[in-house]
């Protein structure tokens, strides 16, 4: 093995360990804030894996969109809804845990079996395209993937408007179609504001 391959192996091992351990931390840690920051680490390591696959554009997009937007959004949501609350105990939590863990392990073994036993039709020179991939992505986006590209912009606009409408504070007091007053018990449970003054 040449030194370049060895370096690739070391990078891959470190990155995949960070991904797996970080993901375990995201789902297992008690504090949701630690989970959110570990999630950022997982996203960064996934971007590193993309760099190992010679995809610098997608790695940059991953860092910008996931770490820069999604993770920050999650941290803001935690900041808005973070309230210490004593969760009600569930009486059959043990059996639920056992069932879900066994389902996940079965699925994992199935997937790994498929990964290892299937014969993939690999193309002979791997990663031959290299740094040209950004140009190829641009050609794809403006030729054969033009319609999904345009639909994605409409989707983003819809998501933006939908998020604004859903997160607005004012609620309607009258039903639009019937004109009857809306059952406020269902809509607004608490009159207290979201950001309460602690001191």
């Amino acid at each position: 093995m040449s030194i370049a391959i060895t370096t690739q192996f070391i990078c891959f091992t470190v990155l995949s360990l960070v991904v797996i351990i970080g993901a375990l931390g995201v789902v297992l840690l008690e504090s949701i804030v630690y989970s959110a920051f570990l999630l950022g680490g997982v996203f960064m390591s996934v971007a590193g894996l993309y760099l190992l696959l010679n995809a610098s554009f997608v790695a940059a997009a991953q860092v910008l969109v996931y770490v820069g937007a999604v993770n920050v959004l999650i941290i803001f949501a935690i900041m808005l809804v973070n309230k210490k609350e004593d969760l009600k105990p569930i009486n059959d939590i043990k059996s639920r845990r056992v069932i879900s863990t066994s389902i996940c392990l079965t699925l994992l073994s199935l997937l790994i079996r498929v990964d290892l036993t299937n014969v993939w039709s690999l193309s002979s020179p791997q990663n031959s395209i290299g740094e040209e991939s950004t140009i190829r992505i641009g050609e794809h986006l403006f030729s054969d993937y033009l319609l999904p590209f345009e639909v994605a912009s409409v989707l983003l606009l819809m998501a933006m408007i939908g998020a604004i409408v859903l997160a607005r504070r004012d609620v309607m007091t009258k039903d639009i179609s019937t004109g009857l007053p809306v059952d406020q018990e269902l809509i607004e449970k608490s009159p207290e504001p979201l950001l309460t003054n602690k001191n």
Partner: protein
Amino acid sequence: MNLESIPLQAFLIVSSALFCIGIWGLLNSRNAVRVLMSIELMLNAVNINLMAFSSYVDNNLIQGQVFTIFVITVAAAEAAVGLAILLSLYRNRVTVDMESFNLLKW
């Protein structure tokens, strides 16, 4: 062991493990924010899979990378709408406990 590069199976196993961790978190989390984070983990696992295949199987027409771009777009939209739904749920129920969101329970 004489390998020319990292085998494709290594990427596939990492993404399988990440996907299963995401499913476990989705099924077992009480906090709704953590459920959203688990969904993001699963989407990332799918992205790793697509990227690995586009690099190892289809390395001239890198369609997997284009698909990954689209998945990232949809994931960003999903996160925004999901967190808006979460905020409005929190406003109505004053909790983020998944067990208390049972209005549609049969």
